[in-house]
């Protein structure tokens, strides 16, 4: 008890990220750990430097939410050499899996597949022209969530992605890009569904759709990923259709694994996958909103 744990967080680019940080802090406090928090401001170099500093400080374990999958080999090796267990949070790395204790996270490709599958199930055989709001170009969630979604719809010729642009994971860009989609697709008449790589962009797009005089959720189906409170509110209002939850509580399972490891050296599984649960308008969105409101999203 009283262990010091270093946590290298990517940054604070979204509400989801803020919630993850809050939950990690809460979990650490509950379990009596001292959390060394470091915000990398979206930069891998800062994360690497932070991990090295953690090692120099001699922390007992390191939590790492990697900003990108590649490039962790040498710093992970250094941690291993110093016998400090590393647990990866919410994103994976491409280093060999003996370099870290375990990874807690969801499968990003799978998330895309769940979202795509929902659309496949709900559209049926009708012709459906889909517009896609991508995440930040080059970021792994953007790449994987695109892949997963495309996997899910590739066998259904009636589903087609007609426009795909980046909305940088932000609400403002989501709205702006959606506006241009609406302009380009006959005022939105030709769009059947929107797939957004995160909820924030979807919320922005919903506003654009409303301002264009269409009904989001009916005229244009909306499916997105993350499960942040605001999308549940939109679902409760009938303006969004489905979201795939990505739980911000990654630290809980991570700490469980660490405790087991410290207690008797139990090696946890190399990938502790969190559930990618699908929520639709039928799943009491209002209640889900209330449950999430206070989590620091």
């Amino acid at each position, binding site marked *: 008890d009283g262990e010091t744990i270093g946590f290298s967080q990517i940054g604070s680019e979204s509400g989801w990220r803020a919630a993850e940080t809050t939950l990690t802090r809460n979990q650490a406090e509950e379990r009596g750990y001292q959390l060394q928090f470091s915000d990398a401001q979206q930069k891998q170099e800062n994360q690497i430097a932070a991990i090295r500093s953690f090692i120099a400080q001699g922390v007992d374990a390191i939590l790492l939410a990697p900003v990108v999958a590649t490039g962790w080999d040498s710093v992970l090796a250094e941690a291993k050499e110093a016998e400090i267990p590393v647990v990866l949070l919410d994103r994976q790395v491409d280093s060999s899996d003996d370099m870290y204790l375990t990874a807690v996270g969801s499968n990003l490709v799978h998330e895309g597949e769940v979202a795509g599958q929902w659309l496949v199930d709900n559209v049926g055989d009708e012709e459906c022209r889909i517009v896609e709001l991508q995440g930040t170009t080059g970021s792994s969630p953007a790449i994987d969530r695109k892949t997963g979604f495309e996997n899910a719809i590739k066998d259904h010729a009636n589903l087609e992605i007609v426009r795909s642009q980046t909305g940088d994971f932000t609400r*403002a860009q989501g709205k702006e890009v959606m506006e*241009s989609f609406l302009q380009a697709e006959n005022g939105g008449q030709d769009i059947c569904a929107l797939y957004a790589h995160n909820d924030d962009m979807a919320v922005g797009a919903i506003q654009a759709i409303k301002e264009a005089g269409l009904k989001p959720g009916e005229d244009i189906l909306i499916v997105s990923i993350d499960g942040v409170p605001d999308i549940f509110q939109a679902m409760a209002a009938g303006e969004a259709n489905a979201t795939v939850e990505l739980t911000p509580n990654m630290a809980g399972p991570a700490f469980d694994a660490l405790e087991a490891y410290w207690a008797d050296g139990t090696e946890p599984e190399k990938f502790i996958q969190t559930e990618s649960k699908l929520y639709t308008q039928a799943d009491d969105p209002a209640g889900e909103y209330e449950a999430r409101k206070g989590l*620091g999203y």
Partner: protein
Amino acid sequence: MSLLRRIAPQLVALLILFALVSVVFPGFLSVSLNDGRLVGPVIDVLKRGAPVALLSIGMTLVIATRGIDLSVGTTMAICGAAAAAVIAAGWGLPAALAVALAAGAAAGLWNGVLVAIVGIQPFVATLILMTMGRGIAQLITEGCILTFSDAGLAFFGSGTLLGLPVPAWLWIVGGLGVAALMRRTALGLLIEAIGINRRASALAGVNATVLVIAVYVAAGLCAALAGIVVTADIRGADANNAGLWLELDAILAVVIGGNSLLGGRFSVIASILGAMIIQTIDTGVLLAGFPPEYNLVIKAVLVLMILVLQSPRIAAEWRLWRDSQRASRAAAERRQAS
């Protein structure tokens, strides 16, 4: 007349861009009236260009004094967060606007004091607030998107007035107002004098310190307006992303507007046109439907081309060539006459 000559390059660039975008997206110039409001891609440009256009007004003044303000993007985030927080606290719209504008003015004052009184170089002084400001904005929103449903505040983002989007009105009125203020009073002259030679101006009795602080405050106020627009637009303050890297777009707009980064002569109207040029490129790229990987390259190439065509060297060389031709012809004629 001289104004028209001043902004001619920007107008021409804008027209060429319109033509280019129309090629990749034929409906670009179509505008229709839809229950009392104009809709169409061009109207979107007017609306979406509002934040950069507003920023470029203040940035023009700052650059005219030989300064630069890198902090306007984060100031937007602070002001947006402040407005949303005040609305969320239930103090009402006037208070929200007042607090946001006050926050913008305070940010400008901070920059202005660091530059004009402490004597830190503008780039560095405003870089400090650029780093710090986003933290301050996040402190207000605690890192999440602070949403609100006040229709009054939302009006500043997505409302319509006389057919045009409110954000467009803001920059049109703001830009014309500031331009008129600069040229109907002596402010424009005094700011230019400071930008060209601050020491000499101060010796001639120009109150350089106060004026320099004032332009940074103006930039802060413009940033506050821009922050209100983007916050109102998405009905929420996104402290993490609001105004991110917009300072660069604003500076670009000022330069595309033909203003020198070395200070001196300036035109607010030309800067605003610069902002519209940038927005036309952005909207055009979105409408064209290229894969997003190409966005940056397209923007860079177009901007470079516009700047190359406007470059002072090309204009100067042409003028020099013309004048020397004229002169030697005149000299030859005179020699023949005598």
